[in-house]
């Protein structure tokens, strides 16, 4: 049997969902791969929901909104765009192909475009093959990475950066200081990498207490960086020293008020 991808599509009520309706009214056929979840606005698509879909084995996630400038809620799709931009960078760190996540704009009058996009994305996913975390035997490594990514987007820092990007770049802070898009992207890239690694470390330490050296080896990053992250995780009350083996401290994850 040929591989049939499962694609989850988040469609905004006003444009892309209506575009999908119009594809139906016009009888434009497209592959059966897609399962639509209706949300009021593409801006509603919390990055954690996208990762939840990948963790559960979606081969692709398609987010669609109104064309920029046409959002029923004026600017929700700009926020969607920023979220997806951040997510793609984050997903690239996990070993899952970032192309599995796609954002497109479809208006209520673009039934043909909707059908074409579904066809195109389905073909793209067919060429890519099943998600490494789909099916009975998900790749444990990538799965763990995705869980770390999800924890990262549930945390304060990335969310605040995404939520304030427009403001920081276009309007500047309360002192009227603006950052350029490049500067912002740099800050963002650094934050994505750091938050991802910290959450990855947290998940690893949850399984078994480990030393900085062990973590450094497993994650393939400089022990000094590992130590820096440990310090921050400790400040956040997420890890603590479990015991000392010889002269090496072993770190363990603390239970944090999970939601």
């Amino acid at each position, binding site marked *: 049997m040929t591989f049939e991808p*499962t694609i*989850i599509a988040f469609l905004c*009520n*006003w444009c892309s*969902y*209506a575009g*999908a*309706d119009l*594809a*139906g*009214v016009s*009888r*434009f*056929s*497209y592959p*059966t791969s897609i*399962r*639509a*979840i*209706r*949300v*009021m*606005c593409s*801006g*509603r*698509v*919390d*990055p*954690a*929901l996208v990762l*939840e*879909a990948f*963790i*559960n*084995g*979606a081969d692709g996630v398609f987010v669609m909104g109104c064309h920029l*400038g046409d959002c*029923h*809620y*004026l*600017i*929700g799709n700009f*926020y969607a765009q920023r*979220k997806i931009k951040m997510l793609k960078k984050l997903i690239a760190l996990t070993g899952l192909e970032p192309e599995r996540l796609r954002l497109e704009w479809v*208006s*209520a*009058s673009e039934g043909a475009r909707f*059908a074409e996009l579904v066809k195109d994305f389905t073909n793209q996913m067919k060429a890519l093959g099943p998600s490494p975390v789909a099916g009975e035997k*998900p790749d444990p490594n990538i*799965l763990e990475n995705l869980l770390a990514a999800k924890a990262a987007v*549930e945390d*304060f*820092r990335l*969310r*605040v950066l*995404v*939520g*304030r990007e427009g*403001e920081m770049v276009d309007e500047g802070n309360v002192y009227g200081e603006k950052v350029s898009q490049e500067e912002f992207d740099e800050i963002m890239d650094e934050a994505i990498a750091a938050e991802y690694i910290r959450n990855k470390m947290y998940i690893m330490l949850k399984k078994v207490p480990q030393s900085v050296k062990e973590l450094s080896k497993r994650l393939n990053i400089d022990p000094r960086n590992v130590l820096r992250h440990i310090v921050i995780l400790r400040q956040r009350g997420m890890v603590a020293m479990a015991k000392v083996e010889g002269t090496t401290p072993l770190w363990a994850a603390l239970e944090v008020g999970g*939601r």
Partner: protein
Amino acid sequence: MAQQKEKPRVGVFVCHCGINIGGFVNVPQVVRYARTLPNVVHAEENIYTCSAEGIASIKEAIKEHDLNRVVVASCTPRTHEPLFRGACADAGLNPYLFELANIREHCSWVHMREPDKATEKAKDLVRMAVARVSLLEPQEEPEIDVMPTALVIGGGISGMTSALCLAGQGFKVYLVERKPELGGMLKKIYRLYPTGEEASRVIGDYVNAVMGHKNIVVLTSANIKDVKGYIGNFEVTVLKEGEEIKLKIGTIIVATGAIEFKPVGLYGYGRYDRVLTQVELEEILKGGKSAIDKRFFKLQRVVMIQCVGSREERPPRAYCSRICCMVAIKNAMIIKEWYPDSDVYVVYQDMQTYGKEYEEYHRRAREAGIRFVSYTKGSPPEVTALPNGRLKVVVYHALLGIRRELDCDLVVLSTPLIPYEDAKELSKMLKVPLGQDGFFFEAHVKLRPIDFATDGIYVCGTAHSPKDVGESVSQALGVASRAAIPMAVKRLRAEAITSVVDESLCSGCGTCIRICPYGAIQKDERGIAKVIEVMCKGCGTCGASCPERAISMRHFKDEQIIAQIHAILRRVAA
């Protein structure tokens, strides 16, 4: 925290929609499958769930099986959700404990060639809907008061008609026209097809009626500067001659009309002064025969060219402008009447003289001696100047397959009505969409042709698409009655789907306050975010962005969406 919830008892109603669904999806199989799903206590199929019988059977089943959740698997929620929610409410169930699975637009109609896969997909869609509905919570819609005052933007025939109709029902109306005078396009038109009445007389009567009505305030030379608020409670700022006027408005009608396309560069327009558009011809005709004689001495031969700049391959001008065929016939007959010895040619691609009057109109024109010559898009006519100042038109006759040269005194180009450039700005202020062609775009082409998706704002006349006076007036009367409904009811239920802040999680960072485009979130005295519910439109962007994840969306909670994701992938999070 979570209250003790009663166990969900879900009823599933799978619709055949005649053969629309049933012809491609195995409905009985979907029903059997639905019965196996968790929480489902009843499942049935209906020929038309939206019919009176279908609705009755939902209500009965709610009573008989003590259902506390309902799923209908049929068509799109964008058209049918209100109906089915109403059925739930009638049976005593909170209407938000309902979910539609769209197995028609999103399934049977797009997978017609793959019935097995379509059936499997329909099952998945039902499973998603059952998973979601099981977690839905009852919602209440807050009530809002509606100002019994309407704003009509645009003082053409459409705007004046709406204004008079609403004023006649006792509502106060502000009619805002940016030109110094009312009347719109018709001020430039000579006679009206199909009756031959003088446009100035029609307009004159309307203007008098509008100006004399005690319930209508006419603001000419006035522009809309800003629109805030929502149905029932819009706050509109109008700029009139440098002065700002603030209005409190219940409903808004967009009747801003359209202008004609100026075909610069086509068929010598802009180069030869004997090449005119139909509007320019109308303006000369208004001066009577003497005005024509003065400008062209005497008309021996006139050629009108149809579809100039319309029906193009691609938007924005891919549409048929609908009125030009009749306009050309009308003006051709006027010229023929004034100059019986002249030849009048209408060079066309297709004569779109639809409906009962217009085909007759076309026949009369042929009988009167107007000559109709067809051309194809591939070989359009060519217009050049003759040494004596007259024009030469070369036509490739599509039916006879011959080339003809016509020397003539006047070439008239039938160009489409096009939207105003700045309709975009108005559309942004009102938060209503424009279509690909730049005209205002209705909520649904068949079912809600004069509503916008945004409540309390309506569209009529040529602001929506090219149409003639009769059609504009019908729509204008239509929007007047649409706008009258909320104003007559006086109280409305607002959106129940709003955001909710969990105070114990909010750190007061203010991200949501900056994100909300409606200014619906403010800080309270403690510095904690607070939602002003009637202003919240329920987009959910604040919740998806809140750094503390302190905001949830009513009816679109994370857990409800996650249930759908899990239902699709049939795997519970690792």
